[in-house]
């Protein structure tokens, strides 16, 4: 039983020394306290009051106020006085709890003892010189032998480290194991039985490499790796109040960004270009409609209720995703570990300050209408068409410094902050140039498809009005109907004429077509006015007809009154409309909203700086993620924090070599995948001996002396259930599928709604990504996973499907004698990607017999339980049912969810 520490100890009584006999060791008891509580301000990062406390010598030397300690006399030492100061504002450290009595006692005892410390103590290095902030250079391969052999460079670095630590690599994995591993890794699906057999039969020395190339060129590669990157880029469909529906976070139609990710990976786009597109496609490729969806990276952070929150998420997650920097730490204060100031936090925010969202129309889809600005208390539902993207709306937007993480605390008198990246990373002098956008970008109504669709829609309306007129002529009250139909036709025709005139004017005014702009505009204006007049005339005829019908039916004066008023009103409108037609106006309604003609170029500058080969962090952060997804463990544990408070790489040279290699390949990822999965390290067995020397030296397998086995990710489990039974629907892309269909739809898991409001239960149980933060996934083993694999409609149904499918194939093969044996073998190969052992075969045969016998005995019960029969339900034939049970059991086998 532990002792309970009183919460909120506020007493600053002078603590005693440590009890006699308890010694103090500087490195063990003193330095860690100083590092934790003092170094941020009094270390190499800041040296406030010219004081550094990172070595004993520097402590003795002291700062502006003299030596920090007097060795041998704690009571007079400045350091002790400051940490025990009763007056709180003067007490150090200024933030957080005071140092504990024990910590103070240790410090005092140490000082009284003469402040002994190792003589070779090294001061903290200049934070700007930290490894991660230096541009990576390609390190030479670790040995002369490595430089001459034709080994995979990845292996030479790993081998050198293993040799240094006295650890041996493992033998190659069995071929079947390797095949399943690489299939699941590269495309997220296991090999089929046929693919397994073809590979086992392929004796060519490059059989494996051929498979790798095939997988990397498969469209499923983009889906598998797209999902990985979606974790880091925080892909989220819209959420907020989906049940209302009310969009608050992210935005509808953002799935186009997901599809862009998948497509870009399949096309082997460079990672640098992808970054630039995600941060600034609207500036660098404003005409490329497909790539505009990439700005979903910023759309995803949008939060209807609070613009500042949008900005904060943009800063934090741009920093974490691409740079491995915890910029969010500088929201309230200068960074405690990294050379980044609070001022620089706001400079980084300024890149995003002009942002707003916008709906773009997509060819062949209804116009989503303009983006609605938020009005308090109004819910707004999702748009069902179009593309969502960002643009710079407020070209002169200013960013202001505030304190305490609360935008209400703007610091008065402080001028607006200019955009810039951290100086320590060379980002403070970026050239920001405004971007002149092409006309179709700022006036999307100029796009040919918009003009065409708008014209066609009206042509169709004219044709419909003509047909209606024909019909009206034969109607009962022909005169009235005809009159109305004629009015409608006239309106439809003038609507068509109006759009044609407006398009013609647009072409002259904005797109450089020949003609006199003024004349064209005047014609467009007149045509539009004519249409308005004709449209009102329709109302006039309707009102007249209504009144006349009422009179004929002998309506009372009270009933007639509103109809008469209606007619008077309409006629007044007609009169009002007539006037402007005569006027010499040149104004007409544009075919879409018109946006600013320039963009600030701020985000382009940021994106190009991030995606530059000069940036020390970008490539390292990317290859670390890629490595993590191949091996299940990264080279730098803190995947989103490469700063000084993050982890050191397990293999620094390998990390740098890979980073340089990625950039040398023009940031293409496929060559890197190929390099990694063809390494010996990747092809090693995952089996190992817990008693081995290897395990004693490196139980965590940081040295990769065996391949680290892993549990499938959530998507692999669900997709796998569908795939092994041959029913996975490989349709790609499109709007997100409702989570409620997770157990019935056969589409791949990445296409289901994924957002911060709720998760699909099945995926959630298997540790699906958190849509708000998933720089690394976790893995758990839960009893609920067992329940999901045993009882879910999905697992049960797919088990039955597969049982039937395999049995049918067996029955078709008339040469087979031992059908049950063949069945067991085939199911093992299809579900687990391996052949069963003898013991497994025997156990399976016993199980099949026992279940069949059970069902024979309980035939009446299974018949009764199956009424009414449901599609996909269990069979009532004892033998079939036993086989279904067998397949379902294999889907629950640990080896199904395990990648070895």
């Amino acid at each position, binding site marked *: 039983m532990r002792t309970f*520490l009183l919460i909120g100890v506020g007493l600053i009584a002078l603590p005693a020394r440590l009890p006699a006999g308890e010694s103090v060791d500087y490195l063990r008891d003193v330095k*860690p306290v100083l590092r934790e509580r003092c170094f941020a301000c009094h270390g190499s990062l800041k040296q406030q009051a010219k004081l550094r406390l990172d070595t004993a010598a520097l402590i003795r030397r002291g700062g502006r106020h003299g030596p920090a300690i007097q060795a041998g006399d704690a009571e007079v030492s400045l350091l002790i006085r400051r940490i025990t100061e009763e007056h709180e504002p003067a007490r150090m450290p200024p933030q957080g709890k005071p140092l504990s009595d024990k910590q103070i006692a240790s410090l005092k005892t140490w000082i009284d003892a003469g402040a002994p410390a190792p003589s070779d103590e090294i001061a903290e290095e200049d934070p700007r010189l930290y490894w991660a902030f230096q541009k990576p250079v390609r390190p030479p391969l670790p040995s002369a032998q490595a430089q001459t052999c034709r080994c995979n460079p990845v292996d030479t670095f790993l081998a050198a480290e293993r040799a240094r630590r006295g650890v041996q690599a493992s033998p190659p994995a069995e071929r079947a194991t390797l095949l399943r591993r690489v299939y699941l890794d590269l495309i997220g699906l296991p090999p089929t039985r046929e693919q397994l057999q073809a590979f086992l039969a392929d004796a060519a020395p490059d059989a494996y490499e051929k498979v790798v190339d095939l997988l990397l060129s498969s469209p499923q590669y983009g889906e598998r790796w797209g999902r990985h990157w979606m974790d880091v880029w925080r892909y989220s469909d819209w959420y907020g109040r989906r049940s209302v529906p009310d969009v608050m976070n992210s935005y509808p139609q953002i799935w186009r960004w997901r599809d862009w990710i998948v497509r870009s990976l399949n096309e082997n786009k460079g990672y640098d270009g992808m970054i630039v597109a995600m941060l600034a496609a609207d500036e660098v490729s404003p005409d490329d409609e497909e790539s505009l969806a990439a700005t979903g990276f910023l759309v995803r952070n949008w939060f209807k209720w609070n613009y500042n929150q949008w900005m904060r998420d943009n800063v934090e997650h741009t920093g974490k995703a691409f740079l491995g920097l915890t910029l969010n730490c500088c929201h309230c204060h200068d960074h405690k570990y990294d050379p980044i100031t609070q001022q620089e936090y706001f400079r980084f925010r300024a890149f995003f300050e002009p942002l707003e969202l916008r709906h773009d129309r997509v060819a062949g889809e209804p116009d989503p209408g303009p983006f609605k600005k938020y009005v308090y208390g109004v819910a707004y539902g999702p748009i069902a068409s179009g593309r969502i993207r960002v643009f710079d709306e407020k070209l002169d937007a200013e960013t202001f410094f505030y304190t305490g993480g609360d935008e209400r605390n703007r610091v008065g008198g402080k001028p607006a902050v200019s955009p810039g990246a951290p100086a320590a990373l060379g980002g403070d002098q970026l050239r920001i140039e405004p971007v002149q956008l092409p006309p179709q970008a700022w006036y999307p109504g100029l796009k040919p498809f918009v003009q065409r669709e708008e014209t066609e829609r009206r042509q169709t309306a004219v044709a419909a009005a003509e047909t209606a007129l024909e019909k009206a002529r034969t109607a009962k009250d022909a005169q009235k109907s005809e009159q109305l139909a004629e009015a409608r036709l006239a309106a439809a025709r003038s609507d068509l004429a109006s759009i044609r005139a407006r398009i013609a004017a647009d072409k002259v005014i904005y797109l450089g077509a020949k003609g006199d702009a003024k004349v064209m505009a005047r014609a467009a204006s007149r045509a539009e006015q004519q249409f308005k007049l004709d449209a009102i005339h329709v109302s006039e005829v309707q009102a007249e007809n209504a009144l006349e019908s009422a009179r004929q039916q002998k309506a009372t004066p009270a009933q007639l009154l509103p109809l008469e008023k209606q007619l008077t009103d309409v006629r007044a409108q007609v009169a009002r409309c007539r006037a402007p037609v005569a006027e010499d106006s040149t104004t007409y309604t544009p075919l879409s909203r018109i946006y600013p003609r320039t963009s600030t170029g701020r985000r382009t500058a940021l994106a190009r700086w991030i995606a530059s080969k000069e940036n020390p962090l970008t490539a390292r952060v990317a290859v670390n993620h890629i490595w993590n997804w191949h091996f299940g463990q990264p080279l730098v544990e803190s995947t989103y*924090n490469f700063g000084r408070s993050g982890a050191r790489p397990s293999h620094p040279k390998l990390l740098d070599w890979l980073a340089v290699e990625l950039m040398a390949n023009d940031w293409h990822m496929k060559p890197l995948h190929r390099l990694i999965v063809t390494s010996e390290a990747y092809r090693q067995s995952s089996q190992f001996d817990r008693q081995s020397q290897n395990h004693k030296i490196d139980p*965590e397998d940081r040295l990769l002396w065996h391949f680290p086995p892993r549990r499938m990710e959530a998507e692999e489990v669900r997709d796998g259930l569908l795939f092994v039974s041959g029913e996975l629907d490989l349709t790609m892309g499109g709007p997100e599928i409702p989570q409620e269909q997770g157990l019935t739809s056969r589409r791949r898991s990445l296409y289901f709604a994924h957002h911060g409001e709720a998760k699909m239960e099945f995926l959630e149980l298997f540790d699906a990504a958190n849509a708000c933060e998933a*720089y*690394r996934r976790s893995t758990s083993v839960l*009893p609920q996973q067992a*329940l999901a694999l045993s009882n879910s409609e999905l697992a049960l149904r797919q088990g039955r499907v597969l049982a039937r499918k395999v049995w049918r194939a067996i029955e078709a093969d008339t040469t087979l004698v031992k059908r049950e044996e063949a069945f067991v073998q085939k199911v093992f190969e299809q579900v687990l990607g391996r052949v069963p052992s003898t013991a497994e075969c025997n156990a399976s045969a016993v199980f099949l017999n026992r279940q069949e016998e059970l069902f024979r005995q309980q035939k009446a019960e299974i018949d009764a339980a199956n009424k009414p029969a449901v599609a996909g339900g269990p069979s009532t034939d004892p033998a079939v049912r036993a086989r279904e049970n067998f397949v379902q059991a294999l889907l629950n086998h640990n080896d199904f969810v395990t990648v*070895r």
Partner: protein
Amino acid sequence: MSIPMRTGGPICGRIDRRTFLADVGLGFTGLAMGAMLHKDGIAHANAGAAWAPPDGRPHFRPRAKSVLWIFLSGGLSHLESFDPKPALTKYAGKTFTETPYADPLRSPLFHERSRAVVGGERPYPKIFPLQVGFKKHGQSGVEISDWWPNLATCADDMAFVRSMYTTDNDHAAEFQMHHGRHALDEKQPVLGSWVHYGLGTLNENLPQFVFLGQYKDMRVKQNFAPDYLGPRHAGVELSLDPVNPLPFGTRGKGVLAREQQEQFAFVNELNRLAAAAHPEDEQLQARIKSYELAFRMQKAVPEVLDLSRETAETQRLYGIDNPTTAVYGRRLLAARRLAEQGVRYTLVYLSDYGEWDSHLDLRNLHARSCGRVDKPLAGLLKDLKRTGLDREVLVVCCSEFGRTPGLEVRDTYKMPTGRDHHPHGFTVWFAGAGIKAGTIHGATDELGFHAVEHPHYVTDIHATVLHCLGLDPRQLDVPGRKRLEIDHGSPIRDVLS
């Protein structure tokens, strides 16, 4: 109930990976569960300092074994429940400045304790009178409104904290009540997840953190979300629907019990064969165990939720015989059964989402909602007392905030008849194990506006609950995850026995 493999989420701080591999064999005990198989991906803020996940034991002597956390969503009016203010009736229709009391809108607390996510501040200066009468009850003489006739008879078994405040004036305050942070700040694990993370299991066959309730708004899930503690510390939603009490916890349609039992046995047999081939695979051992647990859980959950095992008298006590109160009575009776059977923490969502949000027609809407839960809540307290469970089970009942003393006026309201959201002062109550019954702690000002005497932010409730369970929240901190002082809160010692 879970067997962690690798702790969740991204990491920061300094790294010192280790394997906490307590027991991969057969000695799978409750307390070892949390640590059974824990491959740690968590960074250590303090280089060299040893860190281990909790071992499942309390940090000091606990006063309670388990918790029933009862939540009323939408904002229960503290004024028409447990903190009635006669001044409101006396000065009805007047503005705050026309009363003899200090204008609460001019108090610095007004800005300090409210940070709007949406809309503005909510200054409604015209006083709206109490919509219901009130009386003193019990030996403590606590004033309780007349809408709580049954619960009022339990006054001496309850402890009231009348000086709560929160900082969000909109409904994200509901999630804040559970995880402790304002909507614009970084999310944290909810209290139930911390309890689950910190303490071992009381019953291996039941989930230890349960959610009971019904809702359409998916955001309700945030109230039992574990955030960075990972899905194994999430609240498990149980349902009183006998067809599907536990997610995936019911055999598929047409599947026989015996059939499934044989199947489970076969899966285990195959996994044991695989384990022989892969002695190195620690996850496999955990998976074998997880199937055994799953099978037992599937059996145990429907049993514990089977309310027909309770006498008719007990069901009446909870109001299950009355259609108005039945739904709520069933939920609370089920919660008692869960606590009795060793569920550590049950979050009972005792209303629809936003049900208590009476912007208009407060008189009728609050009377209606009180009528639904008054009898069941009283029944729960009486039942706990007579069974002696009040010495083991801690009960907390709260809402995300109170309601404004002023009348809510808006352009769109023809006839204003309600109160708006009020984060500045409201009441929660406790009962059961560890609680000093009959306590009234803290106070709002004369107008029921600001919590002025012993003010408590919501995490003080968390600290109180953790304290009763014998947990020190600071010792639960996960390295690399910054918890602030305000996240830890302080136990409200006046209400502790």
